């Protein structure tokens, strides 16, 4: 039953993607200016943004994703240049609830976009999906939880039609937080799956 629902959803998303190719491009473009404004955001609490993100407010979610990708750009120069080489914008990060690896609605929306980028890319782009956790919980348990997050994101991309051999996963548990700090906001940004272009 659940499987059939997923398949239906996948089919719907695909239709949306095919029909709305332009909209998708636009979503990718909006990322550029967002990065510039986000630097200040990461330094002050963004409670409001987070609260919205818990729902399916796409713009708030995008802001978090942008904040996240700017943080990544800072500590992962090579990832940044990979993206430039591939000629695609950064894949958006998806977020999870505490101690959960099932996909929220906002995560499914983002994964649909990410799947779209994958399926439209002319090069045989490969993705490594990194599963991450917030600082709560044991490092050991979080390694397993991070892997579940990466795999549930990967499984959804496959459901949406991405070829399995273009996807791989790794868990970093709580070892590589996107943002420092122990606030709810920081932890919400750290419970995530990131999409890295795999050479």
């Amino acid at each position: 039953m659940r499987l059939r629902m997923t398949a239906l959803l996948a089919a719907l998303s695909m239709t949306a993607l095919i029909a709305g190719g332009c909209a998708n491009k636009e979503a990718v473009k909006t990322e550029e200016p967002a990065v510039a404004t986000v630097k200040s955001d990461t330094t002050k609490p963004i409670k409001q943004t987070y609260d919205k993100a818990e729902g399916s407010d796409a713009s708030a979610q995008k802001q978090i994703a942008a904040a996240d990708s700017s943080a990544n750009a800072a500590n992962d120069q090579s990832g940044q240049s990979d993206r430039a080489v591939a000629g695609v914008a950064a894949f958006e990060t998806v977020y999870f609830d505490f101690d959960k690896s099932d996909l929220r609605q906002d995560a499914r929306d983002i994964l649909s976009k990410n799947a779209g980028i994958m399926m439209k890319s002319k090069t045989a782009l490969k993705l490594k999906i990194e599963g991450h956790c917030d600082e709560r919980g044991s490092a050991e348990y979080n390694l397993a939880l991070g892997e579940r997050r990466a795999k549930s994101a990967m499984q959804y991309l496959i459901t949406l039609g991405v070829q399995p051999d273009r996807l791989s996963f790794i868990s970093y548990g709580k070892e590589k937080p996107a943002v420092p700090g122990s606030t709810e906001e920081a932890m919400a940004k750290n419970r995530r799956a990131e999409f890295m272009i795999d050479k």
Partner: protein
Amino acid sequence: MRKTFYILLFLVAFPAALPALAGNIEAVEVTAPGNRQLKLAVETPRSLNTSPNATSAREMSAVIAFDMNMSGTISAETREQLPAATPVPLAGTSYLPWSTAGFDLLVRGEYSITGDNLTVEFRLFDVLNQKMMTSKRYLGKIKDLRYFAHSFADEIMLFVTGEKGCFTTHVAYVSNQSGNKEIVIMNWDGYNQLQLTRNGSINLNPDFSPDGRELLFTSYKRGNPDLYKRALSNTVEVPVSNRKGLNITGSWSPDSSKIALTLSKDGNSEIYTLAKDGSRPVRLTVNSAIEVSPAWSPDGARIAFVSDRLGKPQIFIMNADGGNVRRLTTAGSYNVNPRWSPKGDKIAYARMSGGGFQIFTINSDGTGDTQLTSAGSSENPAWSPDGRFITFSSKRGGAEAIYVMRSDGSGQTRVSQGKGKTTQPAWSSH
């Protein structure tokens, strides 16, 4: 049976002392309040050279006093040598001033330093019965002086409790002081830190081999979280398991024939055992839940582990072949990091409470669940080889550091000295 043996050993060692000290043997086992602790004076060792090194001498007596005070069985104080017209050799020790000052035991020492060579002799005296109990002579380098003092502290524990101390053992842990999470080793009291791994990657969960000569750990050095081992005596990191997915929380079986660990090669994190070279995986758990952190019972017959099969991580126990799984912890909604005590009676673990973790111990039959820490957030407990202490990482104000406490939770003391965040301590064997 074991206790009888200790008392016998005690009798053989110094029968005359028995009437005076017998009551305190119980205090060692129980550490109940009301039982008076033995009082020990540690005199600053006397130099046999023309050029004494007061700093070295005081460091040695301070080490012995620290170890004894941490043990909880003896209350120790460092004391300067008694003023005398001529220095009193070890053989001519007079007891009266010490018994008058209320001491039961006395450590005196003599040392000489030539170049960077150090020779030191310590003696333990029973002040009440006016007898020498034990004497040890150490020859080595000046840099060994703390080791010599710890070694004599082990000897004092043997004479007072019938069980050798663990003061010459090591603690390995994960530190990010270098900028990356690397494995570092130090003496149990935090001195002589030495960074072992230098691969610039993420290194996690060190575990000592039963002989104390090798470490198992997980490293991302080749991209995937793989299990490696290395001898303390060299720098070669040997891959043990690099199967697809997680190769984490490796734990040597007590007879060192096997390694228990978590693998996710079959699609989900499960507990397996491997032969010690990493071959022949045997799957022990079959469950769609997360299973991590296997911890062997000291007889190797059972394994404690963490599973969220009931929704949240809890500690379970199974036979070493995977049979007879039963839940151990029933209180608390998130329990992790099990470590079996060397005597087999207890399991230490960490429970999430409030925003952090606290260390608990529970009997292996599930009774006697006891909270040991309450300050800050503490996790990753590991027992000393004699079961007297538990080391753990704790965040109390500053960055996470390594602490040691007695197994009843008393005497919580920060031991790691470095900067940066230090976590996941493992305690070596004797």
